[in-house]
């Protein structure tokens, strides 16, 4: 790193720390997908279809997650409805 980069690097995070942050997010995401049961994907599609009968939502606005705790599993469904513009 030369003297000019030295001043530049004061303001920006290093490229390695950007890489680390991005990796942590994608790896966490892919791990949670790996551990979820196979039916979850299908179920998510069907739930979205049902919701769409009533409200228009995008796929990305429906989050479905299965969380395992010690003695039970919790199915968490998170739907972001479109903004009301009346």
């Amino acid at each position, binding site marked *: *790193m*030369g003297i000019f980069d030295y001043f530049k690097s004061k303001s920006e995070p290093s490229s*390695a*720390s950007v*890489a*680390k942050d991005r990796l942590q997010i*994608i*790896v966490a995401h*892919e*791990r949670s997908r790996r551990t979820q049961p196979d039916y979850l994907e299908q179920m998510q599609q069907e739930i979205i279809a049902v919701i769409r009968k009533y409200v228009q939502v995008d796929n990305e606005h429906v989050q479905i997650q299965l969380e395992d705790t010690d003695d039970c599993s919790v199915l968490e469904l998170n739907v972001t409805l479109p903004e009301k513009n009346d």
Partner: protein
Amino acid sequence: MAKIIVVTSGKGGVGKTTSSAAIGTGLALKGHKTVIIDFDVGLRNLDLIMGCERRVVYDFVNVINKEATLSQALIKDKRTKDLFLLPASQTRDKDALTTEGVEAVLNELSKDFEYIVCDSPAGIEKGAQMALYFADVAIVTTNPEVSSVRDSDRILGILQSKSRRAEQGLPPIEEHLLVTRYNPDRVSEGEMLSVADVEEILAIPLLGVIPESEAVLKASNQGAPVILDVQAEAGQAYSDAVDRLLGEERPLRFTDIQKKGFFKRLLGG
């Protein structure tokens, strides 16, 4: 019963074959009868790295298809006692390795050898899955770079779900992280992920860190595994990794920056 070690990575070109040759040789140097198997069907390379390419007559697929016996196909290393190689086939048929065939060969080798080192092909598909299926130990070879780390995590997922141990509900494969092509200078400049970063993301125990080194290219030019180059840092780092694999404690070496003068650093040396 032999211990089956797979050297795997997901991503290609990260140093699996270099590491398989070095670690297999290191185990044999320690007096353990070892065989290294090249699972990279169609892309046989381990023989070149080991320097015995001209002695290949029969290969892994010939043995599976009963066209040759195991003792006809095994190549005894000329330099290192207790070391053997089972070369990959050059066939284009990617389905040449069957689970039953591989299992039969591994069972037969298990009677004679202490360690079986499996050099995996790149990818996360069938070829890589075959190489890891029967493993007891996995050496996850990773470069400090985003796509390699992500692929290593995918391979960990496969080790944990698609291996024989996972499918049969046996104790899981023992996982080890081997960081290769490490450049401490670039890490200190914030241009490369550090060992600690990679360890934190993958969350498996560290077996070793192999520095980026010209000695690796030199070793492959000569067809002598780099661990035999006792002067080279990469060779010494592989020796440390082998010792750790055998349960000995070794401090990490070659992970700190080479000391440079203040002005040289300031001016970008």
